[in-house]
């Protein structure tokens, strides 16, 4: 950015100085020619007064010197101004640059702060989210574990109940079978013929009632 401002300015200044030198040189050459002409004139005239001629030459010489001096002075002034401008420009550029850097630095700092804040917020949010997720996962795991435990417990309970029922049924069947055998033998041997006939009669009455109904 500095180079883009400074270099063209220096170029302009250099150009101006060069122009001044060129003009001065051209003027000098012109005056020199005039001097030559005057010399020629002097020679031609021969008769002119050498003093007058000398005066004219001196005057011309002085004038030339003055012009050169003025030109030099002007050039120096321009150069000085150019230098001053250059310094000012440099200072200005430096200031602008410093300001820009400062602003950019501030902006960067602001951005860094923002990023930091956002980052902190994000980290905090992420942390909270992570905590929530972990908590949720733990709750789910706990719930799942409880569910599995309940399921297993129920399965075991059901299995035990079924086993118990099966065993109880087996025992009941054995008891019933035993009772049946005992009762069969006891009843068969204890009933008299009269009892048997009475049983048949009662059974027949029951059959009769069954058909009547």
């Amino acid at each position: 950015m500095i180079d883009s401002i400074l270099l063209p300015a220096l170029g302009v200044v250099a150009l101006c100085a060069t122009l001044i030198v060129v003009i001065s040189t051209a003027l000098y050459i012109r005056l020199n020619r005039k001097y030559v002409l005057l010399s020629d004139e002097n020679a031609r005239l021969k008769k002119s007064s050498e003093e007058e001629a000398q005066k004219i030459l001196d005057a011309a010489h002085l004038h030339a010197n003055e012009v050169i001096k003025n030109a030099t002075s002007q050039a120096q002034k321009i150069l000085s101004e150019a230098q001053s401008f250059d310094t000012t420009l440099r200072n200005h550029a430096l200031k602008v640059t410093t300001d820009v850097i400062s602003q950019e630095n501030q902006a960067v700092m602001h951005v860094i702060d923002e990023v930091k804040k956002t980052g902190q917020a994000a980290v905090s949010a992420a942390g909270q989210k992570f905590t929530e997720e972990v908590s949720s996962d733990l709750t789910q795991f706990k719930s799942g574990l409880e569910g599995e435990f309940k399921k297993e417990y129920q399965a075991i309970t059901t299995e035990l109940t079924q086993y118990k029922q099966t065993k109880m049924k087996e025992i009941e069947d054995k008891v019933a079978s035993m009772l049946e055998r005992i009762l069969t033998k006891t009843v068969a041997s204890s009933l008299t013929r009269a009892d048997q006939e009475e049983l048949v009669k009662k059974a027949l009455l029951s059959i009769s009632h069954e058909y009547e109904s």
Partner: protein
Amino acid sequence: MNPDIFIHLKTLDAFYDLKTALMQAQSSMYRTEGSQVLLNSLLASYPYLSDLSLTAENLSEVIKQLTAQVGGVELIRAQLTVEPTDALITHMYDIFKTIVKRPFLIEVSINKDILGGVFVEIGGKQHDFSLLRLVKEEIHTNNV
């Protein structure tokens, strides 16, 4: 032939007894000449045969008719634990007569396993009034 013969017979066993007696009588008549004596003896044992106008000549025909008739009557199967007396058979027949309205005979069989009571099959329908069923029901339903 008079269908009342089944009222007299009552059981299938009685029919087989009668048939056997008739066939023996028939056989005897070929060997002896005292056929009337045999017939009188038969009628004495089975008085209801008098309704059949039984003669030495129609004896064979009577046997055939009786056999054919028994093949067409309904059989009521009854299982008992003791051999029934005539009185019990009569009682059974009277009871079944109120149930079955056509000629029938009782086929009695002895089955000690039913412990007591009777197991009857009428027209393919079974009626278990045995003591065995009562005992089993008592044991299994009341969790004795």
